[in-house]
């Protein structure tokens, strides 16, 4: 060291060193917690689907599948928009209502109800389903995907969901 240049030694030196490390760690920690939370918070947000009313229960014809509009508010961070999907609903003679996702479980096309043949048919690859959703023909690996549905105060409420296509099991996206 140069002449005339002094530096603290011993416990005095170690106090300065430790205090510096302590204070800078405190700053680092106090910043790290909010900043990390700020970035990861969207990943921790639970995906929640609302029950949406899509029809009056008594207006649904028995054993005639209906394509109903399902309008939902989609909040993608700060961007908000409404999206309308079609959902199939079938009311059986005992009053039980089944709602189907409009997407074919084979590869994700939209299927239709054929009134003449009384079958759901997918135009893309020819999968055919019975009114209860079972596969009658074609490459579909599983029955039509049912959606959570309930009737409350005379309204049919449905939760829209999408499922992975092409699998034998129904796996939500």
């Amino acid at each position, binding site marked *: *060291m*140069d002449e*005339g*240049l*002094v*530096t*603290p030694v011993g416990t005095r*030196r170690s106090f*300065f*060193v430790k*205090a*510096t490390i302590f*204070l*800078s760690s*405190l*700053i680092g920690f*106090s*910043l790290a917690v*909010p*900043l990390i*939370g*700020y*970035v990861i*918070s*969207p990943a921790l947000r639970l995906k929640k689907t609302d029950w949406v009313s899509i029809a009056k229960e008594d207006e649904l014809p028995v054993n005639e599948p209906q394509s109903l509009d399902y309008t939902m508010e989609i909040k993608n*961070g*700060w*961007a908000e928009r409404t999206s309308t999907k079609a959902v199939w609903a079938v009311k059986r003679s005992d009053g039980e209502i089944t709602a189907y996702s409009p997407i074919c479980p084979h590869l994700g096309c939209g299927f239709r109800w054929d009134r003449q043949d009384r079958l759901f048919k997918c135009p893309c690859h020819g999968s055919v389903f019975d009114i209860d959703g079972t596969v009658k023909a074609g490459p579909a690996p599983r029955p039509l995907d049912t959606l959570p549905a309930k009737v409350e105060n005379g309204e049919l409420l449905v939760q829209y969901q999408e499922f992975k296509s092409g699998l034998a099991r129904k796996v939500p996206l």
Partner: protein
Amino acid sequence: MASSLYRWIDQRLRLKPIEQTLLDEPIPGGASWQYVFGSATLFLFGLQALTGMFLMVYYVPSTDHAYDTVQYIQHEVWGGWFVRGLHHWGSSAVMVAIGLHMLQVFFDGAYKRPRELMWIVGVLLLALMLGFGFTGYLLPWDQNAYWATQVGINMVSSVPLVGDFLAKVLRGGETLGALTLSRFFAVHVAFLPAVIVFGIMLHLFILRRVGPAGPHDEAKAKSGSETFYPRQVYMDAVVMFGVFVAVALLAATVEFPLADKADPSDHSFVPVPEWYFLFLYQLLKYAPGPWGPLASWLFPAIIFAGLLLLPFLDRHPERHPASRKVVVGAGMAFLVLVFSLLGVSLRDLYAVPKRDPAIVRGMALVEKHQCKSCHRIHGEGANIAPDLSYVGDRRPEREWHIRHFKDPASVVPGSFMPKLPLSERELNDLTTYMLSLKSENES
């Protein structure tokens, strides 16, 4: 563990000499609390860079979305209000730190030979920081951002010959809008950071080449030096921590609210610039008509020229403030001027008369009875019935309004305005609001 890892790296990269150069820098006269301002500025700059990067995670620089994304950060992102608060208060704190740093260097005569270049680079860094402040202020795209930037750009356009062209370059055309926002964003987050990082490195490089100035007292300076590490580093850390706690407390307790979304048609909005531009804003008020350009560009230009040339104007080697009466006096006079202007400006801002509560109730009635589905007030509302923006000028009589609200057709034959079911008090409140809609109440 940590030390054996360091040894392993050191054996390969030979870090010890660099470590010694960095840490054993001699400080003439020893470590001192006077020398912490530069480090505090650097720390706050780092905090701004860090919080700024995090704000960019959610911010979108478009006139359609900027305001929504800032609202989203403020109200919905976890910790977003705190990160935005740190960035907002940090921007003020960094200006305070720069001010104190410059004052210390000024009064200590530390800008003198051989440190002229360090001072000049420092003044350029100040200009860059003001550029950060000016460009960043527009980004939330609220009314304040929009109109304060409008004023700032109009000041630039007062520069002779090239002013209009410069203003167009700043705006990206004739009007302040989408192109302005994206270029201000690019300058704020890419161009300025790139330039300033280089400037800061240059400032520090020069510091290491010429060494710290030390005390202006010759005897004290010659009494010996102390290593930068650990005592000066410790002092810097204590101050950085104090500064951090202050900024974090401000961010946590004083919310910086957003005004309404920018509305280019609403000329009634009175913008307030950041406090570090307020003295200039105030000066503009004292420079009427043709004198305006003196305040809007000549004065700032003279300040900057004076700061840049200071080491060449004041060349005497004497550093003690008591022996530099002219320069120190001029500096003091400048400070008194700036702080008086700032004080007057702040007093005026807080002296803005609080709105008459009857007017506020009247405004609420306008909303409640949906008057704006036919009438327009300062650009808001439909254009079916007469515009009410200045109805107080056209119809200054209270009686007329009361009769009109009770039965519009009785004073305006053929009026299709419905009779409003208002109580006496409501009639009076609504009338008070109508009478307040005068051009003289605009500013």
